[in-house]
């Protein structure tokens, strides 16, 4: 258990700068994920921590001590690879014992620790299998056990659930959270899967184009991102552009093209400033009649509806000409807002959508 500091590391391959000053501070026992699209540098960051690539500038420290000068095999980190990298010529036990053998642990000690960790990942009955004789989920657990058994200072995971199918991935998410809590180890994992990052980590660091854009608790990051890029990267969003204006009661509003005017709650805005607005689809409400009590209520026509299971993605062309993405959930008790007949949304129907001012996010 240790504290990991990544201090503005830079790395370039030829002319191509892959890491443009990445800094990240991870507290003891914390689980942080680096989330980003492929090619953003997240895997390179992980490989730099592990020692497979060396940054040109910056420092990486564990408990205040720089590890940059150490070769990979002396860093005492637990790595779980995307393809698991289990040794195909060794059994489960031999795979897990490998790191302990390298640390010259006694036979008795090795046996005891392997048994203990096998129990933790619930694989005790498969100890003599070869990796080729196991399912993807089982291999993943062996990889995790192999990384954990050496009591690493930090656990590093590269797209840990990426190779599993959806259902197994959901199971492993729960399992992984349980093991992580039980062991309480400082953990950092990289992923391109938002759901994985949001559900598994204490904090999420969104990485775009070689830089950490924003870091925060999953909910904060999703509900109120500071940067526009993070907002559009995380989940779906409607993005509008407009100019700030104040009415006679000095209430702030944004005037967009096509005569669309939105009331906003944010303070400290300059009159006439141009801003980008972001609104999450699930923050809109749909109804068949206009409610004058509700601010930011607009009339429009349903152009498209895509059924997604738990909700439907409805695209509404409002009178200003904007196409707005709205999530629609069928309510219990028959209240279907008058837009659906026998559970299906009717394309072409005229409806009203509204959004609360505090759900409108503002970016430069």
């Amino acid at each position, binding site marked *: 258990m240790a504290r990991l500091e990544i201090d503005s590391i830079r790395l370039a391959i030829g002319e191509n700068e892959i890491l443009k000053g990445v800094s990240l501070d991870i507290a003891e026992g914390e689980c942080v994920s680096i989330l980003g699209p492929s090619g953003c540098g997240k895997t390179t960051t992980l490989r730099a921590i592990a*020692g*497979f690539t060396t940054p040109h500038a910056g420092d990486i420290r564990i408990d205040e001590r720089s590890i940059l000068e150490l*070769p*990979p095999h002396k860093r005492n980190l637990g790595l779980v690879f995307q393809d698991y990298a289990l040794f195909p010529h060794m059994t489960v036990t031999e795979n897990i014992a490998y790191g302990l053998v390298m640390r010259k642990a006694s036979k008795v000690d090795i046996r005891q620790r392997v048994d203990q960790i096998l129990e933790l990942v619930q694989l005790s009955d498969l100890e003599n299998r070869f990796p080729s004789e196991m399912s993807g989920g089982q291999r993943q657990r062996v990889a995790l056990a192999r990384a954990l058994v050496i009591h690493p200072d930090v656990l590093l995971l590269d797209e840990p659930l990426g190779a599993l199918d959806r259902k197994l991935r959901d199971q492993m998410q729960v399992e992984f959270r349980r093991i992580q809590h039980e062991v309480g180890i400082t953990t950092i994992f990289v992923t391109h899967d938002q759901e994985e990052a949001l559900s598994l980590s204490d904090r999420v660091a969104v990485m775009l184009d070689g830089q950490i854009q924003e870091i925060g608790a999953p909910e904060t990051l999703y509900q109120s991102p500071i940067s526009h890029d993070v907002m559009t990267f995380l989940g779906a969003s409607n993005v509008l552009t407009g100019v700030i204006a104040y009415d006679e009661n000095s209430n702030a509003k944004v005037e967009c093209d096509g005569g669309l005017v939105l009331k906003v709650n944010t303070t400290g805005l300059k009159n006439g400033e141009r801003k980008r607005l972001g609104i999450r689809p699930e923050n809109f409400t749909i109804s068949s009649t206009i409610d004058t009590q509700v601010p930011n209520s607009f009339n429009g026509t349903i152009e498209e509806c895509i059924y997604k299971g738990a909700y439907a993605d409805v695209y509404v062309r409002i009178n200003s000409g904007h196409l707005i993405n709205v999530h629609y959930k069928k309510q219990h008790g028959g209240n279907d807002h008058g837009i659906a007949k026998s559970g299906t949304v009717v394309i072409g129907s005229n409806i009203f959508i509204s959004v609360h001012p505090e759900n409108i996010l503002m970016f430069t």
Partner: protein
Amino acid sequence: MFEDKSFRVVVNIAGWLAMVFLVFPVILTVVVSFNGSQFIEFPPTSFSLDWYANISSIHRIGSATLISLGIGLMAAGLATVFAIGAALVLVRYPLPAKPVLTAFLLSPVTLPTVAIGIALIQFFIMLDVAFTWYSLVFGHIVLIVAYPIRTIIASLTLSDTSLEEAASSLGAGRLTVFRTITLPQLRPGLISGFLFAFLISFDNYPISIFLVRGELTTMPIEVFNYISQNLDPTPAAFSTLYIVIVSIVIMLAERRYGIISLAVGK
């Protein structure tokens, strides 16, 4: 991959020394071929092109090289044609006892080459066709057919059957699919298979030595005879020419068809 200093140093030194060992005799042959001395000597003492002029004094070298070329082209061509059908069946079609058939067809490579020569000469004498050019071609096909089979199988395994399915779904008949889709995908395998089959036939001594007599002779046999009877560096001049030509052919084949990646896998 292995960032470890002692490891890197050892691998670099040992690896490059081994490469020096691999090219050393070739470089030396080239140097000696330009030396004026009557005997093989190193370091060289004077420059001369005499040995290149002297190549023609190797007994029947012209006709022998032509015969080797002809035999090689015929044997490699026939072997490659045979191999296309065979490889297609072995990879794509259902057939009982496939492993046995594959092992049978590839086995000549693992046998002592002299054994093939000894078996064939007795057989050809029995049939009364010994020492004919076509018996020599047949003998060479037996030896070399495994090479195109291997390379074409490698190409087929890499090729994508969905391309053929796409073509036939677009209305191409079986033969058209084969001609327009399958064959172009097999090209690297065909080329490298043919090339190696030809080079092995062209260079063969242990089979040819049993199957030739009199006017029917091949390049390796005549060069071998010259080397065993003369001490002058004429063979060095011949070798230099041979290596230059082979290098050009291999480099062209690599540039156009990527034969190296086919041989070692991606």
